[in-house]
């Protein structure tokens, strides 16, 4: 085993950052604070919608559900029961680039949690469970169909990034889920759930040495997972069940929902902190320029701007919700706000306010182990590095008004792709 690396925080001997790569390739990383009341842990897997082919559309998320359905040592009921017996909060989520399984427990349950989560990562994927869970996934899709904003977001990334890669629907389509087979799921599992694609992250009151010992032995056999054959590449035609129409009809919708996407920054670009602060000044849901012009005046229900960073690219998103008749005038107001920022920049005191707000948010977010887990786990999974809370605060504090204006000039008025969902979309 490679010797674990340790790095103590400059300010505090109770906190430590440690990481190790096991011989299998599995990485273990921990942000330890022995004063904490809880320990948060999660497996971060590089398996998301962008890793799927057309017949696999929705498979990462479907698989996430199936991971709770039992292993060689445990039935589905055992998994659910044991997670509840550990008393903490546990769950999982799937995004475009990763799937995460996590739980927060009191420190005395660390061993049991590691045993359970690690075992869950070798699922049985039984046929009958697959059939039952297919129904749950179809219900989940139906649930979101009743929410017009969800449809607008799904369509917007589908159009902007194209129907594959980052634009692929995380839930899949009704057609892809209905056609999915358990064999395809097993093959996908073997392709993506390989130790080198996985990080086990822990934060809070964690015994790191015990964690590494236990996980080394519990995951040894992961190296022996068979290598699945590569799938044929997708055709260039539109996948079944996908439309690229930028107008979505939502016959019962009272409001109109408008999403735009334009180019943004990825998770490694240095300007991303200036970009986030630009978004805060311009488009936060409270106290921003869009807020005062559109929300405080009651012209719109939502008018926001934010930056979404992926591993190799990024998007600058805007979201507007208002009455269908006010859509045009509000669009103009939003564009006026952007234009003014590009032309004249932002004021020093606006930036200072955004920095103060953002920094306080980081401090509050980092207080609970579960609040630190996700940023750390994802960052280690994708970039193999770490930004401590102090690093993050320093990065925000060093942003200048000039940085923000430079970023605004480059990105804020770029041509945007627009999707609108409303009752009278057509």
């Amino acid at each position, binding site marked *: 085993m490679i010797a674990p690396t340790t790095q103590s925080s400059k300010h505090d001997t109770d906190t430590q950052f440690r990481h190790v790569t096991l011989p299998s390739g599995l990485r273990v990383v921990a942000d330890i604070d022995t004063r904490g*009341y809880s320990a948060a842990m999660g497996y971060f897997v590089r398996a998301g919608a962008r890793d799927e082919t057309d017949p696999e559309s929705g498979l990462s998320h479907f698989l996430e559900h199936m991971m709770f359905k039992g292993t060689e040592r445990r039935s589905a009921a055992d998994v659910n029961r044991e*997670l509840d017996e550990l008393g903490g909060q546990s769950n999982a989520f799937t995004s475009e680039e990763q799937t995460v399984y996590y739980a927060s427990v009191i420190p005395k349950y660390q061993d049991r949690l590691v045993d359970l989560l690690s075992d869950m990562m070798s699922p049985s994927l039984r046929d009958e469970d697959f059939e*039952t869970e297919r129904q749950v996934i179809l219900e989940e899709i*139906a649930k979101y169909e*009743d929410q017009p904003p969800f449809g607008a977001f799904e369509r917007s990334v589908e159009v902007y990034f194209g129907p594959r890669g980052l634009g692929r629907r995380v839930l899949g389509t009704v057609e892809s889920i209905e056609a999915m087979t358990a064999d395809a799921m097993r093959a996908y599992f073997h392709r993506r759930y390989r130790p080198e694609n996985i990080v086990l992250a822990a934060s809070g009151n964690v015994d790191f040495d015990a964690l590494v010992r236990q996980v080394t032995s519990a995951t040894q056999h992961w190296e022996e997972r068979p290598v699945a054959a590569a799938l044929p590449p997708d055709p260039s035609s539109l996948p079944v069940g996908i439309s690229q129409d930028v107008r979505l009809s939502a016959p019962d919708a009272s*409001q109109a929902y408008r999403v735009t996407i334009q180019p943004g920054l990825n998770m490694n670009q240095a300007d991303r902190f200036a970009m986030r602060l630009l978004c805060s000044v311009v488009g936060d849901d409270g106290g921003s320029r869009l807020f005062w012009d559109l929300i*405080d005046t*009651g012209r719109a229900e939502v008018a926001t701007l934010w930056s979404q960073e992926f591993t190799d690219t990024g998007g600058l998103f805007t979201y507007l919700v208002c009455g269908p008749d006010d859509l045009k005038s509000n669009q103009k107001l939003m564009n006026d706000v952007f234009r003014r920022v590009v032309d004249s920049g932002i004021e020093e005191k606006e930036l200072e*306010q955004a920095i103060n707000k953002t920094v*306080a948010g980081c401090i509050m977010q980092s207080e609970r182990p579960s609040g630190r887990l996700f940023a750390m786990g994802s960052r280690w999974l994708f970039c193999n590095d770490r930004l401590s809370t102090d690093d993050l605060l320093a990065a925000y504090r060093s942003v200048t008004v000039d940085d923000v204006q430079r970023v605004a000039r480059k990105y804020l008025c770029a041509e945007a792709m627009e999707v609108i969902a409303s009752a009278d979309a057509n």
Partner: protein
Amino acid sequence: MSVSVDASIQSITLSNGLTVLCQPMPWLRTASYTMWLPGGIAAEIPSGGACSAEQYDAEADPLAGLASLTCEMVQRGAGPYSSRDLVAAEDNLGIDASGSAATTQAVFSAAMPAESIADSLRLLAEIVRRPHLPQSQFDDAKMMLHQERMASLDEPTQRLMKQLRMTQYGNPIGRSGLASIASLESLTMDDVRSFYDNQYHAGGSFIAIAGNIDVSVIIEEVDSLFGDWKSGPSMPQQTPMPTDGNHHLTLESSQTHIGFAFDAIPYGHDDYFTMRSGIGILSDGMSSRLFDRVREQRGLCYSVWASTHSLPGFGSVFGYAGTTPPRAQETLDVTLHEIRHLGEGLSTDELDRWKTRIQSSLIMEQESAGSRAGSLASDQFQLGRVMTTDELERVIESITIDQVRDYWQTNAPDQFRIVTLGPEPLSTPPHQAPTHPLTQTP
């Protein structure tokens, strides 16, 4: 000023009626407050105006949304601050603040780095005591209410639960905070001023503060900021006016959304935690009966849950399931079957899992100043005192499976109030066994 000290929690009632609750959590970097004032939604209508859901026409209600509108208006400038100054001051101090109208109180809460707590209380005092209530911003604030109303129409679950609360409690307890078509026309600035004058005062109000705070300094600060605030009556206690039976809202939606409610006992009742543990066995966690038997074993839905709701003097259980129309009847039948038969087949394991869950959450609550502040205020409101974490742990630990069984066999629910939203209504034959018999959990 009367003082009681319970472990590290301090509770003080000022002479004007404002109760101050403080809990130091010196291991945190943050602090949080929550203030509850008697400006809740139920105070919108005059006494004597109560009625059941059958007699209530939500869209014709001329006062709907008044509590929310007042809450919005008080935040539009106060004391020396304009609306923008207030937001800038909060942002610069790192204060994440919010205000909203709940059923029985207006709630103002905030979380922040601990060093900002005194400043944040000063800002709060300006907002609730010296708001400008600017006429010039009244139309804008009303437009915000209009936006919220429109948004809620696009949220099937919100529409469903709004109707279910009215069915279970009637007017005023079941009122929502949303404006109506009528009130967006009729509400005036005078309505807001009068609601503010009558409902925003120290009488029957609470402020709970938790986190890395120096309790004596904070209590002095609160006393100097609020000690000379006017007093007034607490919110009068209301009585629910339920409407039995089923109610259907037609919508061509992908799912049929099912909401149900039944009467239960409130927080503070001797049997409350026995009842609550049963609902935990029913719905808390992935091994709970509803999750396991409705979702995991049958794949009938993605979301299914039940939870308790309490106000002084009465309580209820509310629940939800969402499923596609062809499977909606079976989902409803299986869900109600589980509730009716909750007292059967209970195992110590089920109870122990729930106990561990609560104990863990009590421990983890020590990591959140906001959660603690909320619990302090809620205890004070519902019980008239604060339960310490130790006391709560003892009560939870003492519950036996026999007590849970006795309670749920004696009080097996059979009167459900059901609201559905979807293409077709459903039926609820009383006490009928589900068409698809349950398999036993292995």
